[in-house]
């Protein structure tokens, strides 16, 4: 696959997995809150495609997209959403904590911003052991209101850590718009004061996101000092948690969303690929998804004794 095809496949997979999650959700087979990335796929796709499998991404509770884009096992993901023993967390993580260490998808936190210093710790370990590879912290615009965000920027800049901060700015924290929470819409500028190179991609263009991350990751792999900061403006199409749209509740308007809905990454990226080739990619992904949900349906729940396993690691 060429780059266009890879990015399209990544975006399409995220979109379709989440659409099928929406279809299944009313059956109550997924008994777990889901925070969907529909409309935001370009960020995870662009970021993860620019990384090597051994490069880690620490994500958020909106974790499906990052997990899938990083190459997380789709069967294990859907089994996890179903609460099954074959899930990536054996039914003990759920939608917000998808993880696949084999491909560097290092989980998500339901406590906003807590994952940011984990990426710094991961990068610090690489730095002192002389491994030249990038680690990514992904977080939203709400996370930059937490103290730990600034603490981590400070330390990462101080130690020149080989990491990339990626702010997925969808401009809402649950139902609160950014400018009701922050005095200025200038997240990147706040990173810049620590002497960190910053970049803003304000239109959700997956190629620009890919390119920015690729440049930063390449610099790190060449041994140049980090960190880097990339802000990706994007828009959440669905409600904060759950499978519905939420225009009717009045905290934001459909008009505001219109420009973003037109930039639907599935359509924009899909249009760049030859129709026949696109149909092949889609067919293959549909088959993956069908297989993953069938697997999740048929595989068993954890044994009751699992309640007590893994509290401590031997």
């Amino acid at each position, binding site marked *: 696959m060429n780059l266009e095809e890879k990015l399209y496949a990544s975006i399409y997979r995220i979109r379709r997995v989440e659409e099928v999650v929406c279809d299944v959700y009313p059956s109550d087979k997924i008994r777990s809150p889901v925070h969907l990335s529909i409309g935001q796929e370009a960020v995870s796709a662009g970021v993860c495609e620019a990384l090597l499998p051994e490069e*880690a991404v*620490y994500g958020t509770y909106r974790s499906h997209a990052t997990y899938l884009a990083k190459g997380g096992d789709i069967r294990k993901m859907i089994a996890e959403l179903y609460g099954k023993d074959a*899930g*990536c*967390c*054996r*039914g*003990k*993580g759920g939608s917000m*904590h998808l*993880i696949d*260490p084999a491909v560097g998808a*290092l*989980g998500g*936190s339901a*406590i906003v911003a*807590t*994952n*940011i*210093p*984990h*990426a*710094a*710790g*991961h*990068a*610090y*370990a*690489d*730095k*002192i052991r002389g491994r030249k590879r990038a*680690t990514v912290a992904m977080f939203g615009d709400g996370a930059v209101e937490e*103290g*730990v965000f600034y*603490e*981590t920027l*400070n*330390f990462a800049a*101080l130690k020149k850590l080989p990491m990339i901060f990626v702010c997925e700015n969808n401009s809402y924290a649950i139902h609160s718009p950014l400018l009701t929470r922050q005095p200025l819409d200038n997240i990147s500028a706040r990173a810049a004061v620590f002497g960190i190179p910053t970049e803003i991609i304000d239109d959700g263009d997956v190629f620009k996101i890919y390119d920015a991350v690729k440049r930063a990751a390449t610099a790190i792999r060449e041994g140049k000092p980090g960190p880097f900061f990339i802000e990706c403006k994007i828009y959440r199409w669905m409600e904060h948690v759950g499978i519905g749209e939420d225009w009717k509740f009045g905290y934001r308007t459909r008009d505001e969303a219109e420009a973003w809905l037109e930039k639907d990454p599935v359509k924009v990226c899909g249009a760049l690929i030859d129709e026949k080739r696109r149909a092949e990619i889609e067919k293959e992904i549909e088959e993956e998804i069908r297989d993953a949900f069938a697997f999740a349906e048929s595989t068993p729940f954890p044994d009751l004794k699992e309640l007590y*396993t*893994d*509290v*401590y*690691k*031997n």
Partner: protein
Amino acid sequence: MAERIISYAQAIQEATAQEMERDESVFVYGLGVDDFKGIYGTTKGLLEKFGPDRLFDTPLSEDAMTGLAIGAALNGMRPVHVHIRMDFLLLTVNQLFNIAAKTSYMYGGSLNVPIVIRSIIGKSWGQGAQHSQGLHSLFMHIPGLKVVAPSTPHDAKGCLIQAIRDNNPVMFVEHRLLHLFHGHVPEESYTTPFGKARILAPGSDITLVGISYMAADCLRAKHLLDETGIKAEVIDPISLVPFDWDAIMASVRKTKRLIVVDTAWLCCGATAEIISGVVERLNPGEHIEMKRMGFAPTSCPPTKVLEDAFYPDPASIALAAYAMCNGGKTDWTPTYKEEKEIAEFRGPF
């Protein structure tokens, strides 16, 4: 061969140096670890030996610095994060409770967080309300954390080595005054297993369980009690999570009396947990007299006259034991002189 006698602080330093030597994934960091005081000497010499990548001072960012340990541990390291006062741990609990404690379980055992959090409880010379707290019970409450609080130099070394090698987050609780204690510590590397209490002194009339520095005060109380003929058995649990219930139960079944003394408050604390654990294990009809002692239910006042009354001490522990062994009578006054490490302690730290 003569026993080698070193201080608790030296034992911590030696354990750290030996583990850093043995395992390159071990690094040590925290506020002031590389300064000329070296956390009461516990981190002295490590910078020269292991370099600034593996022994480093940090910004005043306890939250992010705790997250740093977690991320480094997920990437194969074994970090030791040092806090010169336990009170500062309150700036770390989000990372410890929500992430470190839950990683192994929440990720179905696919990841784990081998980190050690060293913290030091302060006491005396006017430490005041925010430099004196014993907060270990908060950490005991959370599944996924281990909590150890050794009282002797020997066990401090063995426990720290065990903690560094453990595959889980371990809260390593020290006490400022214990750092000054000397005792027999073998030079070679060894581990003290978690979940195994140590009987510091045998006795038959009453069991005194002392946590951290209170183990030392319980031993002193035992000596005060000698003149009354009461033979106290003194136990240092060493490890609070996991806890050695067998050792405590065997002792109380022998003595039929138990006092648990903590360098912390009583409410929802380690003493409450230990007493209720003993009660749950009693057979029908089995009766043990029990009492717990700890901080007064106030903040710690710095002025000496109130500070002295805030803490249990060997005399108050001995008197409580005497009363328990004599049907509540208090017709005995222990001869007690303030201990050297308190009388001679000078700050500012």
